[in-house]
């Protein structure tokens, strides 16, 4: 079984019922993720990145609907799992970090309590061991004074701290796959790098797979092994991170060219033609 990929997705489709009939927002996506592999999904807003991430966890809510020819995680057919079985997989074996921790944390429960609860879903531990694991985890996401942070409520911590708490909560059950959907978009540049370095460090060497979703090409190139570029619900380009600059699809080339550079000398930025090409 260990030779099989961690995740196999074939012909994934997500559609929404609208008054004008169903609209497909993910249109037959295929992907495979190896164990310990880090895959980046990049594209502009509305391209279907979050819907892809959520559908791996079977989290598409009505009126949305997902279908897939294959959705296999560690040999398990996710499409065949019931609601209760899926709930047991989420958090324990596959975790997801969302963009804004403020919406994902329970506002009326202390941080320590929430992390402990996340761990208990997966493992039954005596109270004292539980507390020790929580503190250890808060330590490993480099929160100073973990005992104090454990007693705090979500509104008492800054954005950067909140995102670290999220990471602690998502990683404490030691999932095999972490899906991070724009995990740092709400954070300052300097904190972004710290949070991503932390995710990278916790993922590598722990046998964990990572799917990093972002609109930022440089960021996925930096933190992933392979990249999928999405546009209009489809993967338009798949490449390894070092080969991103050799991208062949006009959309990818357009996105790369449209970004200002640190050593900028161009007078004008080339802009994307919405039909897929590039115009200036």
């Amino acid at each position, binding site marked *: 079984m260990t030779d099989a990929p961690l995740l196999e997705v074939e012909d994934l489709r997500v559609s929404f019922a609208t008054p004008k009939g169903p609209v497909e927002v993910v249109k037959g996506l295929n992907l495979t993720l190896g164990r310990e592999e880090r895959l980046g999904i990049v594209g*502009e*807003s509305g391209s279907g990145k979050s819907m892809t991430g959520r559908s791996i966890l079977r989290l598409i809510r009505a009126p949305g609907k997902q279908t897939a020819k294959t959705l296999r995680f560690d040999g398990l057919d996710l499409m065949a799992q019931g609601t209760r079985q899926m709930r047991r997989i989420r958090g324990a074996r596959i975790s997801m970090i969302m963009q804004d921790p403020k919406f994902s944390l329970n506002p009326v429960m202390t941080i320590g309590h929430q992390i402990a609860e996340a761990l208990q879903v997966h493992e039954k531990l005596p109270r004292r061991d539980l507390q020790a694991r929580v503190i250890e985890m808060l330590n490993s996401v480099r929160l100073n004074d973990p005992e104090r942070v454990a007693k705090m409520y979500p509104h008492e911590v800054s*954005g950067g701290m909140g995102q670290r708490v999220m990471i602690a909560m998502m990683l404490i059950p030691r999932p095999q796959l972490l899906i991070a959907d724009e995990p740092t978009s709400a954070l*300052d*540049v*300097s*904190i*972004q*790098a*710290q949070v991503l370095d932390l995710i990278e460090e916790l993922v590598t060497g722990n046998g964990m797979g990572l799917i990093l979703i972002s*609109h930022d*090409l*440089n960021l996925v*190139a*930096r933190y992933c092994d392979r990249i999928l570029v999405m546009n209009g619900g489809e993967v338009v380009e798949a490449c390894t*991170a*070092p*080969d*991103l*600059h050799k*991208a062949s699809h*006009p959309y990818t*080339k*357009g*996105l*790369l*060219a*449209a*970004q*200002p*550079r*640190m*050593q*900028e000398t*161009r*007078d*004008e*930025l*080339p*802009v*994307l033609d919405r039909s897929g090409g*590039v115009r200036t």
Partner: protein
Amino acid sequence: MSNAAISLKDLDISYGDTKVVRDVSFDVATGESFALVGESGSGKSTVLKAIAGLAPDWTGEISVLGKPRGHGTDRTFSNTCQMVFQDPYASLHPRKTIDTVLSEPLAIHGIGQRSKKVVEMLSAVGLDQRFRFRFPHQLSGGQRQRVAIARALMLEPKVMLLDEPTSALDVSVQAEILNLLKRLRREQGLTYLMVTHNLPVVSFMCDRMAVMNKGRIVEIAPKTALYDGSFSDPYTLDLYAASGGNPDADPAVAAASDTKDP
């Protein structure tokens, strides 16, 4: 400095009892594009608000085009200096058509030929005339930001205060808005003071930058410092490294930014 479009001297700004900006002094030359960078909460927006009259609790000196600014709002002031905000969703009134949004500043100042000016401004910011009688929710984020820029330009100001004008936008839309701002500045001889957290945007748009940290300016540097990282303040060096720094030092980033223009 006689040719300064904006001159700030020993500026301290407070909200109630809390002083959030201290000791800020710099001049922006007429026609210059000057960036204010730093992390959130460092006081960048507050500096712009004080210049625009939206943060009245300050001490020190503020002058715009040689005229000292008083505390509070000042109608003649809006003829010379206008502000554009980050969020194109929040900054436009949901129940006013684009036509109303653009005519209003003219009406308030008793300026005529409003219809003609609105039509001209829509084309100046690259918006099709069919958007004229639409409401903000019928426009995309990029289109709304064009409207916000158009509204700021209606009174033909000489100085524009831009607060993260592209942070809420996708890369390709950001490129369109940055091109637009650059062209307008060239065509209309505008002076820009622009807040951003994105150093490559500074490299594209600005001549100089001031770096803020915890309410103070820690460094003022020319844009060329971004080419080789020749900053002197440790905080600025951290920010530069976290932003991808010198791409030559990082193969992945170099790869991503090394693409030839198609």
